[in-house]
């Protein structure tokens, strides 16, 4: 079947921070640039980022990019690529000041400079003491960033395709990426977007988990498309969790609640943290608290009919303190847990927050995959940035405020590389291979014609529960093994989902079915990669890889200092080495990650 074709120099999928930053680079260089986005750009999930963006401006006290680099390598538990990390930390000041010039309303010091505040894990002088490095715009940093970038893109004539969902990468027999197929939600029409450069900035896939802080749009569309086109996904076993999310909803309950005296209790009302961390108790670090919560639930001491959550109790606090210091938490608890925390404890579980892995890229934003004897060869015409990409700067664990920096630096860098590549190419656009387009049409046709099968909602729930129970914040060998077989069963259901509504206009049932086809690729990649990695590192913590003198924190550098690559075809795994050599400075040598 023939479909409409639209031709651009560059097509960007996703209009969050990374997509908008990349688009700006392309449009301002005069290239004809299209941005495809499921929702209006300023409603992308970047809006939810509050903390700030890290840059060693040194406005409040002495700071240096090299110290920032050290903190990021250490935070990553040495799984981050040191060339990309040096690149990001050195570029931070430039991209933040650029953003200031675009009109970003950063908080200011009395002297008029960008105000900087401290943030967990950011230190001065190679881990010595906390440093003020985060630049914020009140608690709406992500929101302000999107507005500044969007306005600038409008000025630069970026062409926005709002409420369009990209469906598949178009790749030819030589492996070159030639664009994407996409669905216009308003009409249901499928269109081919032909381009010399295709940039993915589709964000994370936190919705694979039952408990997640991610908005519903975070369905890993870019990862699904890349996987189906034969591109591997890197380090998918690494997901950052927060210990306390509202059970059943995932909404974050800030750690400040425990700071104000909140106590975690199990089904018998016991303050269980006393057993796990006799000194710090409920104020122990995130990973220790999460692990204790999961252990309580796994050993049958969870609360509720399914014994699947614990309680965060602040009923002993003076109601005035709750009203004054934690008003937002009271609203969230009433709204999503149905309990007023002044009177009753809040049901909580660890909640998924951020995806460290993704589509493998280098620091120039090019997507890289194994070819011949090399593990990292650029895929022609294909670039990625932001949470969907794995550069890899976050390695096994991300530092707060480095995610906004990631999308600015690598959005710009992917844009710059794409500009160079498009400008030096003298050839016309290649013809689009019909087979690639047919693959999309077959997927749509299946949904249109499928009469019996699995429900989308039920299959998504099965996936989310499987991921939460078998591959959550604290992992067990037997549960992971069982999880692999369960998630592959769920995948079979996803291949035969049925939707009742076959209409064309804003058919949200069809969109959700297509999103689930992307989520399941990410879920399978995560489960298989996690089952295979037999060590603990950063956010991947296994019960059978505990903290020992020989292997501090359970990390096994001898066998596992390497990136995982998962391939959809045959669910095959491969590994590539971590880049330990930075661009200009000496390697930050391996040591135990301790704060």
């Amino acid at each position: 079947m023939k479909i409409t074709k639209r031709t651009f120099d560059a097509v960007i999928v996703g209009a969050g921070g990374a997509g908008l930053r990349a688009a700006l680079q392309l449009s301002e260089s005069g290239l004809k640039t299209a941005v495809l986005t499921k929702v209006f750009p300023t409603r992308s999930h970047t809006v939810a980022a509050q903390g700030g963006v890290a840059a060693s401006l040194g406005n409040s006290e002495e700071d240096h990019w090299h110290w920032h680099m050290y903190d990021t390598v250490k935070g990553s538990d040495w799984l981050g690529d040191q060339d990309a990390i040096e690149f990001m930390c050195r570029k931070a000041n430039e991209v933040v000041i650029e953003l200031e010039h675009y009109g970003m309303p950063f908080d200011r010091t009395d002297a008029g400079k960008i105000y900087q505040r401290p943030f967990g894990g950011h230190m001065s002088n190679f881990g010595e003491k906390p440093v003020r490095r985060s630049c914020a715009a009140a608690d709406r940093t992500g929101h302000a960033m999107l507005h500044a970038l969007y306005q600038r893109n409008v000025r630069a004539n970026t062409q926005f395709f709002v409420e369009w969902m990209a469906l598949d990468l178009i790749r030819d027999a030589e492996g070159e990426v030639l664009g994407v197929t996409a669905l216009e939600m308003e009409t249901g029409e499928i269109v081919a977007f032909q381009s010399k450069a295709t940039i993915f900035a589709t964000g994370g896939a936190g919705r694979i988990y039952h408990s997640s802080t991610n908005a519903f749009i975070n369905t890993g569309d870019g990862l699904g498309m890349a996987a189906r086109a034969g591109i591997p996904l890197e380090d998918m076993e690494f997901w950052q969790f927060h210990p306390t999310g509202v059970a059943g909803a995932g909404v974050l309950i800030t750690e400040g609640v425990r700071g104000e005296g909140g106590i975690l209790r199990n089904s018998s009302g016991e303050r269980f943290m006393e057993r796990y961390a006799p000194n710090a108790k409920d104020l122990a670090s995130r990973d220790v608290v999460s692990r204790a919560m999961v252990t309580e639930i796994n050993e049958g001491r969870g609360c509720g009919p399914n014994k699947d959550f614990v309680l965060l109790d602040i009923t002993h606090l003076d109601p005035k303190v709750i009203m004054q210091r934690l008003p937002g938490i009271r609203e969230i608890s009433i709204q999503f847990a149905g309990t007023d925390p002044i009177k009753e404890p809040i049901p909580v579980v660890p909640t998924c927050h951020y995806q460290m892995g993704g589509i493998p890229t280098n620091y120039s934003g090019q997507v890289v995959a194994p070819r011949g004897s090399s593990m990292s060869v650029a895929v022609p015409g294909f670039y990625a940035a932001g949470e969907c990409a794995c550069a890899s700067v976050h390695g096994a664990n991300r530092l707060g405020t480095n995610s906004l920096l990631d999308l600015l630096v690598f959005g710009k860098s992917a844009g710059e590389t794409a500009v160079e590549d498009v400008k030096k190419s003298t050839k016309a656009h290649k013809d689009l291979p019909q087979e690639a387009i047919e693959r999309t049409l077959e997927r749509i046709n299946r949904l249109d014609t499928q009469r019996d099968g699995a429900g989308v909602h039920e299959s998504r729930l099965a996936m989310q529960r499987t991921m939460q129970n078998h591959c959550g914040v604290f992992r067990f060998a037997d549960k992971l093994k069982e999880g692999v077989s369960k998630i592959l069963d769920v995948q079979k259901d996803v291949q035969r989902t049925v939707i009742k509504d076959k209409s064309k206009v804003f058919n949200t049932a069809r969109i959700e079915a297509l999103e689930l086809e992307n989520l399941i690729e990410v879920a399978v990649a995560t489960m298989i990669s996690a089952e295979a990695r037999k060590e603990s590192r950063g956010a991947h913590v296994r019960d059978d890889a505990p903290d020992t003198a020989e292997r501090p924190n359970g990390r096994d550098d001898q066998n596992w200092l390497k990136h995982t690559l998962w391939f959809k075809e045959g669910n095959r795994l491969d590994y590539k080495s971590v880049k330990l050599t930075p661009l200009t400075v000496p390697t930050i040598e391996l040591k135990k990650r301790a704060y």
Partner: protein
Amino acid sequence: MRPEEDRGARLRRLRWHCRRALLELDLVFQRFWRQAGDDLNDSDAAALERLLELEDHDLWELASGRRDTDDPQLRGIVERLRQA
């Protein structure tokens, strides 16, 4: 309402526009639709359309009750969101 758009299409479009940047809002709107279903009348739909033009943080302040609206057309729909 857009020209030539039928009622079903309008409601489906509104449902999609309830996909927001913040999880809190996604959850509130999910419950809202479960209760309202396709029973939303034209004036409710028009009010919802206007409400959805707001920025997410402002919308959350209204939905969570932290702030009230002084817009009479929005009051009813905000109240339904809070009760959802």
